[in-house]
């Protein structure tokens, strides 16, 4: 590991990323970089929560970062319960805060 101290992670690894793209979170545009996960794009935008829990309606976001804890479940392009920490972000992705089990659409 180099003994450098960078101002940002991108600077540390000398990142020369491909062009960024747009996606939205609850209607608000955010930026994504090719190869980033949904969770990484959200963190980049300063967003830490994108789900509320089933029982107590509490906010949650990425926790374990490796797909083991399922705390980061999000609704992406209308599909609920996607692991944001594993799912690559794609141009135009529509991410919405997932409420509870995420299946309200089935109820009724």
């Amino acid at each position, binding site marked *: 590991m180099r003994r450098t101290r960078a101002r940002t992670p991108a600077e540390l690894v000398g990142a020369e990323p491909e062009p960024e793209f747009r996606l939205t979170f609850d209607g608000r545009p955010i930026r994504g970089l090719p190869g980033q996960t949904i969770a990484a794009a959200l963190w980049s935008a300063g967003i830490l929560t994108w789900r509320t829990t089933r029982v107590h309606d509490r906010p949650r976001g990425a926790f374990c970062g490796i797909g083991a804890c399922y705390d980061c479940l999000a609704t992406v392009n209308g599909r609920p319960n996607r692991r944001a920490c594993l799912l690559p972000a794609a141009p135009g992705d529509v991410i919405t805060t997932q409420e509870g089990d995420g299946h*309200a659409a089935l*109820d009724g």
Partner: protein
Amino acid sequence: MLTRHPLDVVIVGAGMVGAACAYYTSRSGLSVAVVDRGPVAGGTTGAGEGNLLVSDKVPGPELELALLSASLWQQLSEELPEGIEYELKGGVVVAASEDSLATLSATAAGQREEGVEAHHLTPDRLRELEPHLAPHLAGGCHYPQDAQVQPALAAAELLRAATRAGALVRPGEEVVGILRSREGAVCGVRTTRGELRAPVVVNAGGTWGGDLAALAGVNLPVLPRRGFVLVTEPLPRLIRHKVYAAEYVADVSSGSAALQTSPVVEGTPSGPVLIGASRERVGFDRTLSVPVVARLAARAADLFPVLADVRVLRAYHGFRPYLPDHLPAIGPDPRAPGLFHACGHEGAGIGLAPATGLLIAEAIRGKRPVLDLAPFAPDRFDATCHVP
């Protein structure tokens, strides 16, 4: 360690049936101890779906037991905390073809004569009760008396109530011997921690009840009949009743060791949908069977296409205590005076537990039981097992 207080009854097994026996015996004023080598609800109870069904029983002694139990469960639901998740949700039995519907209707007619509520369902009415059912089903039958309970919590709460009535509950204590008096009567048990003396020992050992019987020197041919359950991700209340296919009844009563699967699907108050039911006699094999799980999934998706995209989080298995004629052993064992059996309920133990507990309590107290115990006689297999 020797218990100083004299006990009237030692119940072996802290599953649903043992818990119900403890509840009814302790509340009838008897001094009771419950021992189990594992934890509360650690065997088949913890692996059950909590079915309290009358719909899957054909007229006969088991149906009488189920009807008695159904009313007892209603009483218990008022006495025990809400946490046991008792729901009088009703069962819906579904027939895919006209033939199957005809058989189902004939079964229902027989059940009605015994006091079962059973309502014929047209395809339209079926969809009203369960909007997510597959189209093109021939019809079905609605059984409003079918109910569900969370079995581990129900067993634990029954034991807590028994404890309040004075019962001792001792999990993690294995029975290694049955004590007999000089005259041959059962007079307690020897456990890994000492002796528990009592004039009555109740075998509520479930799938392992045959082993306990053997400790007393008597034959009770309980065999494990394995079943898998799939548990989905939490969902809204898509499925309102306990829903199963008409052929389930035939599978339950089959004597074959081979695999049977018929779809049994139901929602739970906590969200996940439970999917059963498979039956196979493969001993105590604990490995996941991919073909069985696949068949369960396929049949459930046929019945409820809405579930196809839903994820299954977990699969688990349990071993139903199977006796060759599909009836439990309930009552005193003439071969070992003082020994009572309350086991071998196969997949119906949760549902049949209260009636079993009540009958056992009555039998111990020498009262005339409300149901005839003859069909459940523990020694009924001796004639066929007799070696000349």
